């Protein structure tokens, strides 16, 4: 080996930087999940009722489901183009643990898809008449919960990356797996409305995040090794 040996941390940073750069250059991919979130959330008042009281009741669920769908939609960008141009194979050939490289891809993916949704959620919460005291809780739950959605979804994407048309199969695999996050997220927001303590609920969400960070990239990495030949 020459002096150019790269440490795993450098490889991690390089992958993260590359993915963020690509996302920045394709602004459509950045804006679409966010717009999708806004559009889905605004369909509910139209479809159910514009009555502020009824909206207030369902707002937390609407926001969480919209975030879940937006995350699912954005999943397609995660490995797809890398698979098509062959850079995914290079990633698999790298001597560094695939866990960290997949984690870097997941983080950059969350930064461009999950984080904007979490940031804009108080605005949409206002439009849906969610009671004011729970804006901050909603924001926090989405901030903790959306990375879990990205990490879980990445397993499904990795399993189906070689398939031609995979939109629906990805949803069928991923959505049921996301249910615990959805439950924890919406229950936490409703808990604020009841005025009860949030510590336990947030702890469960955080536990989900840590479990997902620890294990989901391992499963994604194994799935990538199966799908890419």
């Amino acid at each position, binding site marked *: 080996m020459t002096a150019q040996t790269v440490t795993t941390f450098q490889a991690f940073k390089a992958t993260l930087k590359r993915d963020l750069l690509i996302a920045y250059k394709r602004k459509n991919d950045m804006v679409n999940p966010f717009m999708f979130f806004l559009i889905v959330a605004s369909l509910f008042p139209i479809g159910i009722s514009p009555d502020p009281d009824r909206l207030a009741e369902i707002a937390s669920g609407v926001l969480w489901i919209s975030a879940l769908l937006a995350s699912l939609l954005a999943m397609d960008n995660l490995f797809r183009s890398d698979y098509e141009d062959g850079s995914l194979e290079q990633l698999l050939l790298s001597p560094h643990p695939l866990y960290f490289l997949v984690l870097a891809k997941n983080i950059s993916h969350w930064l461009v898809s999950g984080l904007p949704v979490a940031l804009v959620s108080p605005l949409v919460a206002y439009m849906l008449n969610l009671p004011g005291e729970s804006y901050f809780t909603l924001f926090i739950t989405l901030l903790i919960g959306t990375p879990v959605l990205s990490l879980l979804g990445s*397993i499904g994407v990795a399993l189906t990356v*070689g398939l031609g048309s*995979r939109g629906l*199969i990805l949803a069928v*695999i991923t959505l*049921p*797996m996301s249910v615990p996050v959805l*439950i924890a997220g919406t229950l936490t927001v409703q808990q604020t409305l009841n005025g009860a303590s949030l510590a336990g609920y947030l702890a469960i969400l955080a536990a989900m995040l840590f479990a997902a960070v620890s294990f989901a990239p391992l499963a994604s990495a194994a*799935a990538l090794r*199966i799908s890419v030949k």
Partner: protein
Amino acid sequence: MWLWFSKLGSPKWFYELSGKWLPWLAAGMSLLLIVGIIWALLFVPPDYQQGDTIRIMYVHVPFASISLAFFPLMAVAGTITLVWRMKLADMVAKTAAPLGAWFTALALASGSIWGSDIWGTWWIWDGRLTSMLLQFFLLVGVISLRSALEDADAAAKACALLSIVGCINVFVIKYSVDWWNTLHQPSGSFSLSDEAPNPPEVWVPLVIMIVAVYLFFVVSLILSTRNEILERERRSQWVQELIGAN
């Protein structure tokens, strides 16, 4: 032990052995099913609250209890596929997924019929019902992933991985959904004493039905696995000979 283990991985060996077991298993299943059904439908005393509706329990509980076994079974078979590359394990996993979806659907359907009488509604978003429904969705996901991947080897490994992840997920879903909403009665306890809420004449036929449905599951799994073996090994000599002999 290891010789036995590697023998077990041979589809031909399994095919021959299961062929010997099958008549016994099928006979035991039929006997227990007939005894269990007749006992449950004709001789069990009506429940003091639910009346004759209680007889649905003798179908619902066996199906519900066995449908919980599918994800662990598929996860174990998946682990064997990934670690030891055993072909037979994948054949079992492949045939278990649609069976599991059927059993889960039957558990949901029989529960819904039971519920329509005692709860007054066909469906409620209760913890157990919801987690069963989600388990059904996860099984459908495994089946559709299997059918979408054309390469059999990749499909085997991908489904193995998805089954392992799904198995963990089923437990997480179970706990989170229970936490979310619970109405379903907890599983009852059974005892031999006559003063207990569930006397033996209620639970003995239930045990018979549970064993019978388990045997039904084993027989269907073996039958469909044998089918799968013949299909996958159709070019091998022993299958050719088998077909030629018949």
